[in-house]
């Protein structure tokens, strides 16, 4: 029993220490959209290899002392001072680098979101062996040699609906000698949007449709081919006239004619009596269903109405509205 208590106390202490450290780091390195590394943000310490090297140096020193060999002394000291000079070079490899948050791709819970960053050259002409990762993300090794900046994409599974914060980004490097590890923890102002988990339900209760007005108007996402028009942003990729594009006719969208009688309203009140998350999950499911059928759909949430429409852009708007329902702004 005592053991368990002690262990809990231990973890408690460690937890507190970790929290303290996190607070200290946030004070030192506040979140930002782009961070340029300076001496306030860079930490440096001998790596495990460095400690092994120090041990080797000790053996060399003992050899020099025991053989009373001046050149062995000189070589030992040369390597020891190389270690010291290495501090500056290792530091210079990170110093001045700018890390810019570009974007994070939205994802459904359990999927991987792609976080895109841009690394920009610092004071050195060349930066080597930059290692980037978030806790739990994939990692990337980057050299900045020929170009001024390089984009990095890291993947990370996301969990709950809303804004997902990846935490602090670890950027480290042991270049050039591997004897010292230089690193920084950066809190980037970068969040991934997490959609609700789509949850199937057999049918849409109380399907609400607009009344048909009988006019044949071009509506995106219908069945009957109507004609071509120039591509506009937001048109579904599925309706692009690829063959024409291949023939060099420019990007055109196929238009389908239909009576405007098929637009559907996805309404918060359809799933009365369910919990918020469940409602959002069902709405999400149906939005995806209509999108895959190329049907028009609108969304009504408390305090928010999205007119019926379709296409990738419309879908993204709907999903974002569902993801952010009840969530106050971006986390700060």
């Amino acid at each position, binding site marked *: 029993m005592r053991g368990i208590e002690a262990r809990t106390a231990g973890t408690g202490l460690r937890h507190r220490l970790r929290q303290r450290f996190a607070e200290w780091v946030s004070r030192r390195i506040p979140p930002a959209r782009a961070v340029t590394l300076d001496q306030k943000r860079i930490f440096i310490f001998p790596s495990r*290899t460095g400690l*092994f*090297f120090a041990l*080797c140096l000790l*053996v*060399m020193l*003992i*050899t*020099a*002392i*025991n*053989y*009373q*060999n*001046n*050149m*062995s*002394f*000189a*070589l*030992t*000291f*040369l*390597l*020891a*001072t*190389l270690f*010291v*000079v*290495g501090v*500056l*070079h290792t*530091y*210079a490899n990170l*110093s*001045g680098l700018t890390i810019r948050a570009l974007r994070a791709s939205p994802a459904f819970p359990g999927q991987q979101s792609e976080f895109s960053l841009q690394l920009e050259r610092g*004071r*050195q*002409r060349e930066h*080597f*062996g930059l*290692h980037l990762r978030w806790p739990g993300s994939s990692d990337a*090794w980057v*050299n900045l040699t020929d170009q001024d900046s390089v984009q990095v994409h890291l993947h990370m599974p996301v969990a709950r609906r809303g804004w997902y914060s990846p935490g602090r980004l670890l950027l480290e490097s*042991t*270049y*050039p*000698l*591997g004897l010292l590890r230089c690193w920084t923890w950066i809190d980037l102002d970068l969040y991934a949007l997490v959609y609700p988990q789509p949850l199937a339900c057999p049918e849409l209760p109380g399907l609400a449709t607009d009344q048909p007005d009988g006019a044949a108007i071009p509506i995106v996402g219908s069945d009957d081919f109507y004609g071509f028009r120039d591509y506009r942003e937001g048109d579904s990729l599925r309706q692009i006239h690829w063959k024409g594009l291949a023939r060099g006719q420019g990007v055109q969208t196929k238009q389908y004619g239909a009576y405007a009688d098929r637009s559907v309203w996805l309404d918060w009140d359809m799933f009365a009596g369910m919990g918020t998350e469940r409602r959002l999950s069902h709405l999400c499911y149906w939005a995806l269903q209509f999108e895959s059928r190329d049907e028009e759909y609108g969304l009504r949430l408390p305090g928010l109405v999205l007119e019926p429409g379709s296409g990738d852009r419309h879908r993204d708007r709907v999903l974002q509205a569902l993801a952010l329902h009840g969530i106050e702004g971006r986390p700060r």
Partner: protein
Amino acid sequence: MKPDEQIPRNALVWIVISLFTLVAPHAQRIPLWILGVYVFTAFWRIMVYQGRWSFPGRWVKAGLIVSCFAGIYLSYGSLIGLEPTVALLLTAFALKLVELARRQDGYVLLFLGYFICITEFLFSQDLPIVLYSLLNVTVITTGLVALHRPGENQFNRKTIRLATVMLLQALPLMLVLFFLFPRIGPLWTVPIKSHTAKTGVSDFMKPGDISRLGKSDDVAFRAEFSGDIPNAADLYWRGLVFSVLEDGAWRSLRYYNIPASERRPQPVDTSGAPLAYQVIMEPTQQNWLYSLRYARPVTPGVMTGPDYALFSPGELEDERLYTVESWPDAQLELELSPWRREVELRLPEGDNPETVAFARRQRAQADSDAAFVEAVLERFTREPFAYSLNPPLLPEINPVDAFMFRSRTGFCEHYAAAFVVTMRAAGVPARVVAGYQGGEINPVNRTVIVHQFDAHAWAEVWLAGQGWVRVDPTAAVSPDRVEWGLERALAGEGSFLRDSPLSLLRYRGVAWVNTLRLRYDALTYRWQSWVNGFNRDKQFQLLNDVFGGISARKFMLVLIGSWALILGPVAFSLLRRRERRAGSPADRHYLAFCDKLARAGVARQAGETPEQFAARAARSMRPLAEQIEQISRLYSALAYRPAAAADGRQATLERELGRSVRRFRPGRR
């Protein structure tokens, strides 16, 4: 395997290069098959790299290790001693290459490489070796750098640049540490060189031993006199005293054969100014040290034997520096003890009957011992004796008889031995002394370079009232040998350095070759006296002279101060803002303006035109709006409407822009 654990191909190439540069200076002292292991493992690793072979399995590796261990044991006869240890390290270094797969293996290999550099110094600290080791360290460091450049999969010569820069930056720091780091004595005894051949004069002498040395142009030692250099004919570098003739060979008395009362040398009258000089001996793996008699060592750790020869208790594994004072005219051992007299007269019973008879006859005709000595020397001069580096072989039985009365051709050891046998047969105490005679004076730094071919043997006879007197029978046969050295003495025979066609000494006649050789020798001497001479005492003296006394506080201050002085510029050059400002003066002024705004919290974004930026900046700092817009206007006029600015107003506009930017002070956020 994670990318950080992989070995970039560039690193692999550098590691293979370091492998061969490291083993090269050791090649002369390791068995040939170890070089075979190097070639084999490098070949294997390259095959792995090309994807044709795979890394060795566990059993293959174990087999390789065991067979290499066994090979070293068989080659050296043991695994103990410095040479087998170094051979083991070198083999381990080569074998590690075939399992070089991850970065960690690279670290082990390269750190081992650094250590192998150190072991090279245990054999030689000569300047070329030191410079070569510096190259080795650079190559190893390059390997280390290349190891941390992921994705560099082509050999890149330029990788060496960073390693060189870092080492050059470390070098001054190293020098500070080298002079300041306190030197302490050895912590424990370490493996010694057990497999290095002994060189120089050996501890016994048979006919032919010295003449063998006469064919070598290696340097035996160098001496530097604090005053004038004595005449070449007086430079008799005394090393060993051979008092015992046994089984046809001359040897020294063994320490345990000397009665306790005879073990200390008799005191010598040392009045008058001594000759003071410093000697640096090349390693011989033997104990004797050379000096002009009568010599009193100044350097601690140098002993004087009962026959006034100097020796070191430990074998000379490395170069040895010692300082000596000599009184050439001092009389040695004026009173000869009965034991000593008996020893110095002893001859094998019944050997060389002709010589013994001749000696007794001659002694009977002479008035005194001194006259007898003269008579014998005179016979060497009168009769057709010849001095030769390649004398005919003497028979095993009665060799002195054969030499004195038949062959009459010999090198110094034949004359010395024959002379001493003659003396002893007539009842005059005598002994053979081996060492070097003469030497080459280097005009560059006034040192005396003594080569192996200066090896010499002469005699000492004990005369009442004079003690031990040096007699050189070779001088009677070939006065040139003593006056001018071996080359002149062998001029007729043409045998000087016949077997070393590449020896620079053979080209002494070519002025520039000789000048270069002597300059290089002077450098070698200077380096040796510095490297071998810098010890605790010298360090103490140096620090005392430079800093006036040493305290821990001062020590730290000097260390930290000098390091800061060196590291400051290095840090500055590494971390200063990189100027990539090219272009027109207008561009430079405008970029300075952008920098000021950026520091104030308004940074120009990519793709923003000067107008857009100015508008945004003006919005966010209203009080400065006018200035911002003016600067932006000026710049636009200069940069985008060159026609408008070309009518002689360009310079004015540029000055105006520069002034405005300098006056613009948005402050810092």
